[in-house]
């Protein structure tokens, strides 16, 4: 079939007109995906720092622990740089604009969580204070979500905290992750006709987590919840992020 001559003339123009938009949309998507990755990394870095200093935080003999917001921020910036080669204090030019905007908000939200917990952390004579990676992460994600258009939360299939209950999408992603080996990367998808990015990045149990989540199954842990009988490397939960394409 022979195309009309006028169509042969018009089509290249249409392509030329649409191409920048298609390209722009593609770069926005890529920027959002990279931003989601960096946000997840930064929340995980905060959790790691809390975990690393858990013996200090739980030391009943010490009053002022020195686990201050400034100290936390310095450690977070250093650890994030170690993991990503990105200096949060001097973000590189190639970092997506969205990440440049959102990473400082997450860092500040995380630092605020540590500031709010100072009274609890610095109590002398009290050992376990429940300031652990999970409670830190829940609060930091919530504070961050309230200050941006991005939704961030920790979730798992059987959460201890009802506010961490997965939605339908997260539940499907968690089931998918649970069935895969522990080295699996995040589940990343564009939903709503490509208008919303959703990423679900798995968190796996480490040895430290098993004090509360391991064996003996069904017995109460220090915070009063039933131990799940988890093993090292089992899926603990995930960090879920939703970024609308038109963000910010």
């Amino acid at each position, binding site marked *: 079939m022979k195309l009309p001559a006028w169509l042969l003339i018009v089509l290249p123009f249409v392509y030329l007109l649409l191409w920048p938009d298609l390209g722009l949309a593609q770069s926005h998507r890529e920027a959002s995906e990279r931003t989601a990755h960096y946000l997840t990394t930064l929340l995980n870095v905060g959790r790691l720092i809390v975990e690393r200093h858990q013996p200090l935080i739980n030391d009943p003999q010490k009053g002022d622990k020195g686990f201050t917001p400034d100290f936390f921020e310095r450690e977070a910036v250093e650890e994030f740089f170690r993991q990503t080669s990105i200096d949060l204090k001097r973000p590189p030019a190639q970092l997506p604009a969205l990440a440049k905007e959102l990473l400082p908000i997450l860092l500040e939200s995380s630092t605020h969580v540590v500031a709010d917990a100072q009274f*609890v952390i*610095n109590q002398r*004579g*009290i050992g376990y204070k*429940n300031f652990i990676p999970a409670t830190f992460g829940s*609060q930091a994600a919530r504070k961050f979500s309230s200050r941006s258009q991005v939704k961030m939360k920790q979730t798992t299939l059987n959460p201890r*905290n009802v506010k*961490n209950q997965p939605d339908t999408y997260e539940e499907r992603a968690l089931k998918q992750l649970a069935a895969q080996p522990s080295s699996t990367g995040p589940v990343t998808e564009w939903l709503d006709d490509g208008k919303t990015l959703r990423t679900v990045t798995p968190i796996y149990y480490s040895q430290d987590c098993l004090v509360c989540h391991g064996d003996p199954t069904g017995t*109460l842990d220090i*915070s009063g919840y039933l131990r799940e009988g988890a093993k090292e490397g089992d899926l603990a939960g995930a960090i879920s992020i939703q970024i609308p394409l038109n963000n910010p």
Partner: protein
Amino acid sequence: MALYHRHSALNTMIVERSYSVAKSGRRKSLYGRGNTGAGAAVLFLVILGLLLPGCGLIFDAVELAYPLTRDELSTICAKRQIRVGISVEPFRPFVFSAIYTNEGVRVTGLDVELIREVADALTEHCGGQQPIVPTLHLVRFRDLFLELNEEHLDLFVSSFSGNVPGGTPTGLWLSIPYFHGAGVGAMTHDPEIVEKVRAQFRKQTGRTDTLAAIQEGLSGLTVAVQNRRTPHLYAEANLRNIRLMVCDSLPAAVETKDPHIDVILTQYPILQYVTKRVWPDWQLLERPDGSPLILSRESFSIVTGEQKRRLQWFLNNLLYRLEESGRLAQMRKRWLEEEYAPTRRATNEGLPFEVSKVPDHYDQGQCRMAGGR
């Protein structure tokens, strides 16, 4: 009275103003612009000014019959918050140490559950449209009285007992009890002391005299109490031959090694809880038959400022209703008898507190020898 003074000051100002008006009127007449009408008005104002100081008394009298200013309950309704003081020192299971939860920092305990009940009842009282939020101020026990007197708090709940001589500072009011059956108890980590006290009871023939037995049983020992709590008052009044240590908190008493503390006195239900769940190497002093040794009888009340009559009636009526319905008994059972993890309860039902209102780096404090012993 304060109101009267305020009005008196206002009246003084009016008098001064009238006087200046009078002066200016005189100036005008000196300039030859005599005006008898203005002169009469000035005279009237001067007389009125002289009479006004008595108006403060009239205002106070009217205020007494028909309150013109807002009462404390209306203020709570208008602000939609009630400011509640709670002791920063843990009195488990009445108040547990602050804990971090998924929702942020929280405190929990029987006293905290009671505060929730008060807030719920206030919400209902204020029309139920918007909740009355309890704003918790975690304050050192010794500062609760000051904070209440300075009206930074509407009330405080901290397993406080007033039916002990010298227990209630002036200017404070105590509600009907929400917890009966408290009293001064004692714990030790030395089985010989347990036996020594029991032996004193066994020696008594016929009539039991707890005070005499405890005076003899604790004689020569180092006894720790918490500053300004009722066991402190009890020990000062009744225990003569002891070395009395005054501590900032119960954990401080437990932790003190030098000098060695033989016995700690504190409220019996608190001792019951901590010897079972927190410091199992300490044991309660008991009577020879194993029954509880309680040295006095106390009941815990909510505390408010003396003048807050409407709030006081509101609290008394609420506590009566909670007792009548069995709710208070249920609360007591939940916290004193059931097995539970305070962290989980803090997460599910704890209350947040004003982080800005807590002491920096709360420290459980220290113990020091009471003067003159």
